[in-house]
């Protein structure tokens, strides 16, 4: 299957996502240019991490105006799987494809380290083969990952099981001490109502090879490969 990885000016995890898709998973990967209105036949779109437009103004705020985002919106409206990682998540929020917004980390510092996230639902293409409750060790790297939404939005996310990943302790307990950025309800990742658009702050592409010390992230990519293969049969 074919993954399309969007390059915005300032994206910097684009090549990392490409590497995992192509060289670790052995799937097809193509880059999608922000100025084009063409997803090049992608089966799944990845909005990679980085600093689109320098993250100037607000993270993700300027990227939402890129022509390619109209295509991504149409693709997702038709049920196509889309994942935003880190800055990609921020862009999905700014575009309104996902609910909520990001504030600066409670520490007010950029933080790069491994964290633990509990998978809350298997009802998204990106978690389709993960048993809910499983804890994954995946790194984060961001300055604005402090998820915020109005109280009723958070309630809706909870009620509809749209919180996909939550920061927890290694044992899977929700604990403020293991919340790296102050995110509301420990949100590390969410999905839309249709469940095909997922945003997450942790970087699974940085945890997909044994050489890098951790492979827990790979299952997120494998999940979507399986989900798409399954839906084609």
């Amino acid at each position, binding site marked *: 299957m074919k993954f399309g990885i969007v390059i915005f*000016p*300032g*994206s*910097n*995890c684009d*090549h*990392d996502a490409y*590497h*995992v898709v192509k060289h670790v998973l052995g799937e097809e990967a193509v880059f999608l240019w922000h100025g084009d209105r063409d997803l090049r036949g992608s089966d799944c779109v990845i909005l990679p*991490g*980085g*600093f689109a*437009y*320098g*993250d*100037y103004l607000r993270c993700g705020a300027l990227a939402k105006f890129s022509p390619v985002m109209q295509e991504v919106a149409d693709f997702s409206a038709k049920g196509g799987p889309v994942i935003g990682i880190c800055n990609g998540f921020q862009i999905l929020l700014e575009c309104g494809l996902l609910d909520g917004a990001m504030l600066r980390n409670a520490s007010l*510092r*950029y*933080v*790069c*380290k491994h964290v633990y996230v509990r998978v809350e639902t298997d009802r998204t293409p990106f978690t389709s083969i993960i048993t809910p409750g499983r804890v994954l060790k995946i*790194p984060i*790297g961001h*300055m604005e990952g402090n998820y915020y939404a109005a109280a009723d939005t958070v309630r809706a996310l909870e009620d509809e099981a749209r919180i996909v990943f939550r920061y927890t302790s290694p044992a899977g307990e929700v604990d403020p001490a293991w919340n790296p950025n102050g995110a509301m309800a420990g949100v590390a990742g969410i999905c839309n109502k249709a469940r095909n658009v997922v945003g997450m702050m942790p*970087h699974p*592409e*940085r945890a997909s*090879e044994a*050489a*890098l*010390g951790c492979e827990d992230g790979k299952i997120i990519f494998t999940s979507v490969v399986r989900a798409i293969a399954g839906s084609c049969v």
Partner: protein
Amino acid sequence: MSPGVAAKSLADLNLTTEEYEAICDHLRREPNNLELQIYSVMWSEHCSYKSSRVHLRRLPTRGERVLLGPGENAGIVDIGDGLAAVFKIESHNHPSFIEPYQGAATGVGGIIRDIFTMGARPIAILDSLRFGPLEKPQNRSILKGVVSGIAGYGNCMGIPTTGGEIMFDDCYSFNPLVNVLCVGIARHGDIHYGKASGIGNPVIYVGARTGRDGIHGATMASAEFNEDAQAKRPNVQVGDPFMEKLLLEACLEAMKKGLVTGIQDMGAAGLTCSTCEMGARAGTGIELQIELVPLREEGMTPTEIMLSESQERMLLVTERGREQDVGAIFKKWGLESSVVGTVIADPVLRIRNAETVLAEIPNRTLTDDAPRYTRPLSPPACAGGALPSLPHVDPRAALIALLSAPPIASKRWVYEQYDHMVRTNTLVLPGSDATVLRVKGTGRAIALSVDGNGSYTAAQPMAGAMASVAEAARNVACSGARPIAATNCLNFGNPEKPEIMGQFSDVIDGIAEACRALGVPITGGNVSFYNETAGKGIHPTPVIGVLGLLEDATKVVDQWFKAEGDVIYVCGAGAVSLGASEYLRTVHGLSAGVPAAVDLKAEQALIDLCVDAAARGLVRSAHDCSDGGLAVALAESGFAPGGLHGVSVALDALGSENGDFALAAFGEGGARVVASVAPGDAAAFESLAARVGCPARKVGIVGGNALQLAWRGVRVVDVAMAELFEAWSGSFARQLQ
């Protein structure tokens, strides 16, 4: 001298009367004001290396792997598979004192440009920092500003900052040091140079527009600071990492498409430096149409345009007729490009405004033929003096004090602010001796470490310099990589003072000797003089970056103990001393004595052992002994990210009969590494050690929850690893609150 050029205005330009006369000789006439300003910046210490060049010649610069030594924007070494590592270290000390965030950020931006200018894709950054003690609020705020500036720039660029070091001393309170190393990877055939070749070729300006930032930055870096440092503030440059990211991608794309004949970034002295250097290197000249330079501010004078140090700008030369192709690539990345001049046959820098010639200077007189001085030097006085006899201290308290001392305590607070994983090459995360980066598409990895020790160098410049080279090489070897090349950043006081030049000269000799002995030629570097405020200078602080090559990336070793029952060896030989040590400073509040002499033969044997043992898979961990000595190294080896490991060690086994416990536990120096070996590999490890001629003494085993040190049959230290870890891991953040 012309009546118009008073001695006072020469002094303002940091030029001497003799230099003025030399300018008149070069030009065979008097310079006009623009020309004089251009000479002033190009002949500044920062650009011309006028005080250091006669000494730098003594550094070894050749080696089988060296593809390009000092002289271009960065050094280049062969790393096999048709690939090369391009690397260099730079200082940004003065700007970081004036405005820590922007000063450090633009320092990072500058060194990154030096790397991609050569056609290499930057893959990692390391930072070597010096601050005054954290007790002073001002030092804390400088540190915070510098760290967030490095993070702000590097993170946005998507270049991981994967290693570095931080040391503290009061001498850096008014003169923090910010040295940044960047390394990139290029195919041999893709390397580009800063040469203006091909008469008639267009000269193209790309990147940010020119504003009034940083005018006279190079001159500022070439003079002492005084109380009116604040008044120099308008010089501050603001970095735009987003612009630089676009510039990086666009330049690499243009190079890949064969559109770039020559390219150079605009760093110190901006447009002036890049135009005259590119011409001088190619034996050609550049004619610049100043009215074509894209400006950010209105009413800028030619002098301001030529001297501006606005960031994120590059100058490139393409073949005639390819201007549009170049323009299209930059446009795709949202950047402007403008033809601003032409390569000419006359070896001059000619600046015109429409038809009027504003300046015409033989370009080599600004570069190779700039003044060079053999400044008077006096042999450095041996600062340290003898060690007083030390009162007894509780060894356990001493160990805890050392582990929580800022130079030794965990730097997690710092490196968590750096994206150290982007590009997914970081095989060894920060915290271990060297940073190790895989080279995708090959089975190899490179390792890097930056090290320097101002206390050592202040006490004994030559030995201190040798120790820094040895430490950096040892750190790299601990990871299993063979050290292959080095870069250096020389931070000193005022070179017009003979004692400073004496230190400088000795440091060069020390670096030269150590680099030669360890087979790590110097491929580039940077000299930063005038690190003085109100007449008070810093310690002479050479910082050495060593690059190593790991043939098989899967054989990488880190510093952490892995398993209960593994055998602990102390490998290596050489004298150990408490002189100028962290123990003396932290526990006894003293700076006295001299560091141990460096035994380069022992260092080489130790490197061989580390590299060979890693290649054969015989070591589970290797950690060098540096600040805080053996006891600290043992504790640090036990602070494994996956969980703490206790150790039980008998220090007597080291054969330090005539010393005392403090010397054995906390003494520094010596080519020493703490290694752990699986019991089944012990015999093979020992015989390998014998073969390479490196002593390896079995001192204990990994296991338990405590660090236990025995001395003459008595258990002198027995402390829970958790307690040590708490002291070490939280200290830095606590002190910054």
